[in-house]
């Protein structure tokens, strides 16, 4: 039996998992239209590579990865591209972003799929292929997976963790995926183990998912994978928290888990990797929990780009008291700006909210410095200090108190007896700091460009001055062996000589090989020309 570790803090919110975990995963029917955002992952937005009116096949790349931290986007079904436009996307801002709209033709005609032979492929080429297959973390952060599968300067990453903890309330998509598709997850884990050169593969699952644990244990039989049951505590599904539970190791503040030789992937990401490598299928669908204030809470396998409105309709007719939808869990998710927004790779759960299920928070009271938040913080931060600094816009101080190690898990909000929306303050402070960084970068570029312009103007002035000097002083370089003072005289003499030569007449050239008759003809012509010249020069002489 492996020794388990505990992370600091954490909370035990009501789980609400039973609602959606009873029924098997259902395949969502083809929606009436698909809206595929180009920016579904962390990093640069994908570049559209199709045009309006073009017919696309299921799985065809429609958006190309732009740079290393980026990944491709694919057509979820066959059909026609009807628009490339700015449309509502699932983002807390409610701002539109670039999307490709596809009208499905219902034929579900696949593009040619070629499985990848990962054991013999060049690792770098394999990672590029994964980027082109659109692989990104499906746990919610959507970090491009190929970048995480690069062991980098280390020869290998000894510990690979497959994250099946799924600690957020209401969400059951990973639970159902592990129950029904454990074989594929194990197959994907083997590919990752090969890519990272990992010596141990640990699968962490919370003890509230006995069926998933059983299914994964059965699938792992005969492999060196180890299924480890972790006690249920939020947020044990955080990558760093799960690492701590399973290995006892913690990455340094501001550091990555690879620094301590650990890499963590969500089980849904591992599943999509298996589909991509073993079947050549890009990421065009995912399992998503539709729950909350709906008739039949359910897990669906739905196409990326399916409008939220159509997806939630599959769980029964919407109830009258539904106020809106949360994307993600109630702890870390956000309210969708509109039910017109499409499903993206990050959408693991949609919760229909009602005043009964999610009552409005009571009015906030002043902070009483009870430090319950510090006791609950799984990252060992000082949430109350971060709150004061963020509130006072003392961002430098907030950074000194490791604001950027905050995972925005919401434990501090959950325990705060004064109902202060602490995480909102941290998000505000983080985005202000990022905005300042961007502004500073832009100012640095402007400074460099301005300084270069000043330098260029000076240089051009000098060049012009030099040119002018060269012109007024005659030829820059006097003929060799001649003193500089004589150069002017020499130039005049040369000009006189040239003029004399010209006056003497032109000597016929290239006449050596000509027959005598031709030469005679030339001589006659020259004679005539000389006469004419004399005739023309005479009057001027008399004047």
């Amino acid at each position, binding site marked *: 039996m492996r020794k388990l570790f505990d992370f600091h803090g954490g909370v035990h919110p009501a789980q609400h998992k039973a609602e959606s975990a009873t029924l098997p995963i259902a395949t969502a029917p083809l929606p009436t239209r698909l809206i595929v955002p180009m920016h579904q992952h962390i990093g640069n937005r994908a570049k559209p590579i199709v045009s309006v009116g073009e017919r696309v096949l299921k799985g065809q790349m429609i958006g190309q990865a732009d740079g290393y931290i980026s990944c491709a986007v694919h057509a979820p079904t066959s059909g026609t591209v009807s628009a490339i436009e700015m449309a509502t996307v699932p983002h807390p801002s409610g701002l539109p972003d670039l999307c490709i709209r596809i009208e499905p033709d219902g034929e579900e005609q696949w593009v040619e799929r070629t499985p990848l032979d990962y054991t013999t492929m060049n690792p770098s080429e394999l990672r590029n292929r994964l980027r082109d297959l659109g692989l990104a973390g499906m746990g919610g952060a959507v970090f491009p997976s190929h970048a995480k599968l690069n062991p980098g300067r280390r020869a290998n990453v000894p510990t690979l963790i497959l994250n099946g903890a799924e600690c957020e309330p209401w969400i059951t998509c990973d639970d159902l995926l592990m129950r029904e598709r454990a074989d594929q997850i194990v197959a994907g884990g083997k590919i990752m183990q090969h890519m990272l050169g990992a010596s141990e593969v640990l699968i962490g699952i919370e003890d509230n998912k006995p069926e998933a644990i059983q299914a994964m244990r059965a699938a792992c039989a005969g492999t060196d994978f180890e299924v480890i049951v972790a006690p249920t505590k939020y947020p044990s599904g955080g990558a760093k928290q799960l690492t701590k539970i399973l290995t006892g190791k913690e990455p340094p503040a501001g550091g990555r888990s690879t620094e301590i030789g650990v890499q963590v992937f969500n089980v849904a990401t591992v599943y999509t990797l298996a589909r991509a490598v073993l079947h050549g299928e890009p990421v065009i669908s995912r399992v998503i929990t539709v729950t909350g204030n709906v008739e039949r809470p359910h897990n669906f396998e739905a196409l990326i780009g399916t409008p939220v409105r159509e997806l939630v309709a599959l769980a029964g007719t919407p109830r009258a008291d539904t106020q809106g939808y949360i994307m993600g869990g109630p702890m870390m998710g956000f309210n969708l700006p509109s039910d017109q927004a499409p499903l993206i790779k990050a959408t693991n759960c949609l919760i229909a909210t009602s005043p009964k299920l999610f009552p409005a928070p009571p009015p906030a009271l002043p902070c009483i410095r009870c430090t319950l938040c510090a006791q609950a913080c799984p990252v060992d931060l000082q949430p109350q200090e971060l709150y004061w600094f963020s509130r006072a816009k003392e961002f430098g101080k907030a950074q000194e108190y490791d604001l950027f190690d905050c995972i925005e898990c919401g434990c501090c909000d959950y325990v705060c007896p004064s109902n202060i*929306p602490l995480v909102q303050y941290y998000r505000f402070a*983080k*985005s202000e700091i990022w905005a300042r960084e961007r502004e500073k970068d*832009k100012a640095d570029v402007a400074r460099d460009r301005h*300084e270069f312009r000043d330098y260029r103007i000076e240089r051009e002035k000098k060049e012009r001055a030099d040119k002018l000097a060269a012109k007024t002083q005659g030829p820059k370089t006097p003929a060799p062996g001649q003193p500089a003072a004589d150069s002017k005289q020499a130039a005049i003499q040369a000009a006189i000589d040239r003029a004399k030569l010209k006056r003497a007449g032109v000597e016929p050239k290239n006449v050596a090989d000509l027959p005598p008759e031709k030469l005679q003809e030339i001589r006659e012509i020259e004679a005539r020309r000389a006469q004419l010249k004399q005739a023309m020069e005479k009057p001027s002489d008399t004047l």
Partner: protein
Amino acid sequence: MLTALLAMAGLTLFLGLVLGFAAIKFKVEESPLVQKIDAILPQTQCGQCGFPGCKPYATAIAAGEADINQCPPGGEEGIQRLSELLGVEPKPLNAEHGVTKPKSVAVIDENICIGCTLCIQACPVDAILGAAKHMHTVIEAECTGCELCIPPCPVDCISMKPLQEDITTWKWKYPMYAIKHF
């Protein structure tokens, strides 16, 4: 008596030597104040402060020849940061130098542009691309929004477009929520 005097004189000499040596060996370069001020200035290079660019203004502030409230693009926040750096009281922006406007970029109406190159010469950061008798265009990413290209344009084809927020530049807002009153 003599011993005491000698001891004191000896000590004075010794400590003086130590101090003199330290002054040469551990000499601290003059604090690069101009650079620190320049780092706070927004680098718009617009000249609204009355100096030909941000660096000259920074030099003037450091020399005590200019006030800290002459930079409209920097706004109140810039003044605040300058006052913190220099240890002086912040003061409101001097209206003589203009008002703070939302961040914008110049846009050339390419149908009207006659290709005179006057704006190219005016741009302090070389952010306008074009050639004589050919249409010009602004490189949006490099434009600082200084508006210096607007006055020289003989056909008034340049306008300022405020920068729109998109999902990559969007910021979480300062939390606003109900507070219980007693």
